[in-house]
């Protein structure tokens, strides 16, 4: 682990003045499972195309093992791709699709062309078809397969070549929940067993968190945050990341001093430091971190405005004087009931203000009775603004 394999250095891409990728800097470690995560159109496929060699960056460098490979054509890169739209060969059957890469003669160290013997090709293809659960499909034509089956052929076709790096562009998009979960485990297992670097693209944050060693969150052609799944979830860098990864209540706050933040006209203890005195900040509170208590015991008191059963928990929207929060709890609190909440210091996470401030983390639209926000921040109940320390 942790030997650097690929690096994108100040990579930018523009199509006719529209900037698609804006000064990207990422490195990919050997044998790592790295996920590019972001909403549709944020530049994930474009990033993969640069690594695959299908697109030359407008500026910046692509390094492989420290060597600049901007001008190396795709067929000479030790990289294989599972394309977003599969791109299977319609004139070949399943077996021949998977065998396509194996049938291409490779040049060995002495510059001699070597062909893989037919017997080995058959073995490797069949082995791979078994891995992706398509045994018995080898003679089928591509057109006769379902979307999910086609997707698995595409995975097999890329993996069978045992590349150093595998690029996967939303490879599980067409699968149902069950198969998706199975294939997630299967891909993770293959990645570890074959010791291949996976660069995985998805816009499904759950998938990203579950599978990756490293997650790169992108939006608008820029990297918003790079980190382990835990880092990304627990320490989001800005409101975009906080909102995109899981659910978040995001509030305006003011950092009074290290470890003390004010919001709702009341000071709370937190674990963050290093901000300027009285710096305005974004405060993130995850819905599952909030403890519901009896109204009189709570630091804040609010009214439940809607409850949705989600299987494991209830999505409960609580109105705190006009601010609506999402709270996830396993206990049922009926609509209209008054509850109190307690926020522990490690439930509160502070982020610097960013261009995304004020755009996310408000659950007002969750409820039918939309309240005017604004007056609530001024008027506060006596006991709520009382400091507990």
């Amino acid at each position, binding site marked *: 682990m942790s030997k650097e394999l690929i690096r994108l250095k100040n990579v930018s891409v523009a199509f006719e003045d529209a900037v698609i990728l804006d000064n990207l800097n990422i490195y990919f470690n050997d044998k790592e499972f790295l996920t590019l995560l972001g909403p549709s159109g944020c530049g994930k496929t474009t990033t993969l195309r640069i690594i695959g060699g299908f697109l030359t960056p407008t500026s910046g460098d692509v390094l492989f093992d420290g060597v600049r490979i901007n001008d190396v054509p795709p*067929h000479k890169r030790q990289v294989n791709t599972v394309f977003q739209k599969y791109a299977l060969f319609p*004139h070949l059957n399943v077996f021949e699709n998977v065998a396509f*890469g194996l049938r*291409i003669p490779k040049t060995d160290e002495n510059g001699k062309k070597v062909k893989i013997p037919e017997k080995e090709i058959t073995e490797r293809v069949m082995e791979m078809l078994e891995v992706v659960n398509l045994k018995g499909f080898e003679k089928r034509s*591509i057109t006769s397969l379902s979307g999910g089956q086609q997707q698995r052929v595409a995975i097999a076709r890329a993996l069978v*070549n045992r590349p150093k790096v595998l690029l996967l562009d939303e490879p599980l998009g067409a699968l149902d929940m069950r198969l998706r979960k199975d294939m997630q485990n299967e891909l993770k297992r293959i990645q570890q067993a074959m010791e291949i670097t996976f660069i995985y693209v998805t816009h499904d944050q759950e998938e990203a968190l579950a599978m990756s060693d490293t997650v790169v969150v992108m939006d608008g052609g820029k990297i918003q945050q790079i980190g382990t799944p835990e880092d990304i979830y627990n320490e989001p860098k800005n409101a975009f990341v906080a909102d995109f990864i899981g659910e978040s209540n995001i509030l305006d706050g003011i950092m009074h001093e290290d470890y003390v933040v004010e919001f709702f006209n009341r000071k709370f203890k937190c674990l963050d430091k290093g901000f300027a005195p009285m710096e305005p900040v974004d405060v993130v509170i995850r819905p599952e971190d909030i403890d519901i208590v009896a109204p009189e015991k709570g630091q804040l008191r609010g009214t439940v405005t809607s409850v949705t059963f989600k299987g494991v928990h209830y999505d409960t929207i609580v109105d705190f004087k006009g601010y609506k929060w999402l709270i996830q709890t396993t206990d049922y609190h009926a609509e209209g009931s008054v509850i109190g909440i307690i926020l522990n210091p490690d439930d509160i996470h502070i982020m610097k203000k960013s261009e995304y401030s004020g755009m996310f983390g408000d659950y007002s639209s969750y409820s039918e009775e939309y309240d005017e926000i604004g007056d609530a921040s001024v008027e506060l109940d006596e006991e709520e603004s009382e400091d507990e320390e």
Partner: protein
Amino acid sequence: MKNKLSGLAVPYVIWMAIFVVAPIIMMVVYAFSTSNGNFTFGNFADMGLYASVFGRSFKLAIIATIICLLIGYPVSYMMAKEGPRFQKVAMVIIMLPMWMNFLLRTYSWMSILENNGLLNQFFASIGLFDLINNIGMRMAANPELYVPIDHFNMIGTQGAVVLGMVYNYLPFMILPIYSVIVKLDNSLLEAARDLGANNMRVFRKVILPLSLPGVLSGVTMVFVPSVSTFAISRLLGGGTQMMLGDLIEQQFLGGAYDPYLGAAISLVMMVIVVVCMAVMNHFGEGEEQAVML
């Protein structure tokens, strides 16, 4: 499953019956009739006399089709790979001759290829014949016997007929191939490259097999009119290169008036062409389905 004909299809069906089915039936009836209207196989027996015409027709049509393919495929490929501006210009250049009357086009080739036509005049003006005669005289064992030339024999040769076919039917090869290649999904080519295929291999393993349906319809569209042409062989073949089309025309309109034999020849030609096409389409079937998708 039986589909009921919708009302809109009725005029089309009547049209087909009158202009397609009826002539074929008449042709079949004639082919098996004597001039008194009796049934006979004799017309087919008489055809043996014209085996050489059959042979020549198919030979020249096949050569013309192959040349069209050799020229047409690269041109279509280049057109499809270039930008839309180039495609438009190339399309106009290819279509331009087709806006001129077919006979006119062929006549103009006549005046180019004639013994004292434009091409020979051009060769003479650059001194090509003098050069050849000089060399020939020197090389000849007996210079007295050397006959100097003052033109190339172009008109009236099989080459001229093939040239006429290629010139007239090349667009029918280019257009279907072009339209298949231009619609090829670029991501397939990227996938092949991604798997390690160089440009040559991408072409052989992906582009070529996927463009086969276009090639098949191009071949059909060039071969069928070539094998049955009569004007081209008459005008550029100078009467010495008689082809099936000429033979049939003679039976109906010319001195050798015998519409029963003419019908029999037409029928045989049609059957051969249909069989050829069926065999070819059979080979191309897999790819055809693939491209439908």
